């Protein structure tokens, strides 16, 4: 397939998202919006006593890139500490998604969940 962005893993995650659910009595909740396309992501986190992620969930809707990113990232940060999450770069996010050379508009889709999480970790 020539559609480099829309590889199988990404489409699969779009159709069958991970951690997309409601997390009752979470410790932190943050919603971010990408006004250029209307992507919305809400992330909820529960911390354990070591300040690491005990549970994480997200909700929202948007394009395949933003939705797949939310699934992959929330999976990746389970058990991770605040500081480790803060250090995740945009580059790393793209690597997790298996994407390279996204144009600036799509880069915002790919990093929307990461931005949301970083606000939680501030």
């Amino acid at each position, binding site marked *: 397939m*020539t*559609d480099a*962005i*829309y590889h199988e893993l990404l*489409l699969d995650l*779009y*159709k069958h998202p991970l951690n997309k659910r409601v997390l009752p009595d979470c410790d932190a909740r943050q919603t971010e919006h990408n*006004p*250029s*396309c*209307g*992507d919305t992501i809400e992330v909820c986190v529960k911390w354990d006593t070591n300040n690491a992620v005990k549970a994480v969930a997200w909700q929202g*809707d*948007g*394009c*395949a*890139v933003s939705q797949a990113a939310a699934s992959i990232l929330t999976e990746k940060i389970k058990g991770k500490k605040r500081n480790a999450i803060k250090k995740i770069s945009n580059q790393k996010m793209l690597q997790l998604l298996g994407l390279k050379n996204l144009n600036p*508009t*799509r880069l915002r*889709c790919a990093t929307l969940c990461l931005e949301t999480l970083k606000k939680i970790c501030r």
Partner: protein
Amino acid sequence: MEAIKKHFPIFRHQKDLIYLDSAATTQTPQVVIDALTAYYTNYRANVHRGFYALATKATNAYESARDSVAHLIKAKREEIIFTSGTTMGLNSLAYSLSPRLSHRDNVVLTRLEHHANLVPWQEMAKHYGFELRFIELKKYELDLESAKKLIDANTKIVSFTLVSNVLGNITPAEELIRLVRQKAPRALAIVDAAQAIAHLPIDVKKLDCDFLVFSGHKMYGPTGSGALYGKKMLLDEHLEPFFFGGEMVRSVSYESADWMPSPHKFEAGTPNIAGAIGLGAAADFIMKLGWKKIQNHESELTAHALKKLKNEVTIIGPVRNRIGVIAFTIPGVHPHDIADILNQKKICLRAGYHCAEPLHHYLNISATARASFGIYTTKKEIDALAKGIQKIKKMFL
């Protein structure tokens, strides 16, 4: 209409380009590029200033562009003010007219408006305290019953679009303006013709609007060009200049200044001379093609597209009384993904809110994809779009 494509050099340079985003900006025909180049290479000089032959030539070209633009909308030449586009036209009107309004007054807009005909009024309402009212829609069309209820003796301005840049519908402008004259005889009627100007013949006298604005870049002209039409009496006596400086003054002392007659009092500073000349060339290009040919071709294209797409996507907009601006959604696929995948087939279309975010919320849709046509668009290109959409559905659903 394949022959018309030959007027547009981009289609020679970008092989297999399928450009379906003419509502965002149209492509440029060679005659417009030639007009811009001729000014820069053969006779560049400032206008209305020099006494030498070159300056006279530049001034004549600039003023003759005003004739062409006036001719396009059946206005008088002194009723045409060159602007940088629709946004500048609407902001100029909002800034200039709003200080006369107070908390007792209201400005009536519609649910359809582009941000350019909404945000300036919102900002002015904050400063001057007037109320904003919005004419509702009924099955995507402006509801004139709602207009009857909203427009009253305290309505001072009614500003609305002639064609929605999302839904593609042509609004009942003449009826609405007649209604304004009955219910609020002193109100001013402003028409945003940005999306209509390249697709419908406009007669400002028949419309009876007080002001009408449009952009050059949506009618095969240069970016950063545009025009504001105003009834002569209003420009002469009602509207104050928006900008002050050189060119717009008759005489100046250290204490004060007085103005040139309109339209020059509204064109302070060195204008976008090349842009105006290019805009004039674009108006001539449209008139030379002729409205009959343009409208026949575009209505055939629109009918073909609606037929091809109606079973593949959800079309957001009316079937009749519309132009070739077609917003749609595919349940389960985000518009950004639609645009991105079509881009891989060199099909250009827009995804998102199209600078009309409140309309999307009003219609309860998150975002749309939008295909829009120009005179160079062909049925073959629409077929390619339909094929691309089928492929997307296979990938995602």
